[in-house]
């Protein structure tokens, strides 16, 4: 499927809200580099086949959309999954655009291959290890103060655990909040049951109940 030139806002909405992940190029006719990126997208469209859809729009023709996504320079590429922007590349970084497109195409095909719904996927993830931590970053590089404190406390117990970096997966990040009815990260699960966030872990620690709770 070739790159589609979008000229109406409704058309744009239809694309980005589709089930298929959309790679959207915000371009301008006067910027030569946009042509390079567009050529690269045409190539990527061939490689990724039907897994992704590619669109190109004139950023200046859609000031509201450009404003919403803080398009400060053309070309900018934004990746949309079911209406929300999940990633972006500012400028002519063909390597980054290509790597991100391929990664999204891959995850699209793995979801399609297993036929997993988001709910099934979340359920499998929280049950991946007896002690699962959903956090920002990973145990060696926590990327938020709360996640960092949590890892510090859990490491003290010497219990084995696995982590999932929600910053790398917007679908899981949003989905798990709803699935578990818990608005924030980090989240700790024992045998698939939500234990809570950092506050709860701290309180369990203060009450000397942490180790027994984490063992399940």
């Amino acid at each position, binding site marked *: 499927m070739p790159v589609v030139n979008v000229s109406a806002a409704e058309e744009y909405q239809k694309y980005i809200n589709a089930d298929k992940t959309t790679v959207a190029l915000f371009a301008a006719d006067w910027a030569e580099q946009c042509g390079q990126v567009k050529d690269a997208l045409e190539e990527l469209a061939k490689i990724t086949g039907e897994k992704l859809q590619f669109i190109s729009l004139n950023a200046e023709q859609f000031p509201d959309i450009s404003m919403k996504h803080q398009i400060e320079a053309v070309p900018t590429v934004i990746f949309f999954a079911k209406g929300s922007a999940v990633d972006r590349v500012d400028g002519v970084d063909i390597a980054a655009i290509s790597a991100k497109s391929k990664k999204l195409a891959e995850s699209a095909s793995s979801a399609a291959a297993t036929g997993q719904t988001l709910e099934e996927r979340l359920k499998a993830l929280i049950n991946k290890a007896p002690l699962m931590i959903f956090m920002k970053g990973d145990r060696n590089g926590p990327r938020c*103060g709360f996640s960092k404190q949590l890892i510090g406390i859990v490491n003290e117990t010497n219990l084995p655990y696995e982590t999932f970096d929600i910053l790398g997966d917007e679908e899981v990040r949003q989905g798990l909040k709803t699935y578990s009815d*818990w608005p*924030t990260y980090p989240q700790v699960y024992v045998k698939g049951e939500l*234990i809570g966030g*950092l*506050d709860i872990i701290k*309180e369990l620690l203060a009450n000397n109940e942490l180790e027994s709770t984490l063992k399940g």
Partner: protein
Amino acid sequence: MSKYDSKYLEEKLKRELQTEYVSVTDESDGCGGKFSAVIVSPAFSGKTLLQKHRLVNSTLAEELKEIHAFSQKSYTPEEWEKVKAQ
């Protein structure tokens, strides 16, 4: 920057959860993005830790969309007596 301050959050928690004691501290130097709270309410009686926190989270669901970081210590009046005694 959120439009909420500690006083607003305290009043809302007091109203919704009939708290016996509530104290919300703004830890964001006034920008309203980070708060910590101590909440004492009979509404927590018989609830697990997780359920208590869920109750507070759902009470402040709208506000938490804008508040970046919110930490809570939520006690029943009986638990609070013990905490104070420590």
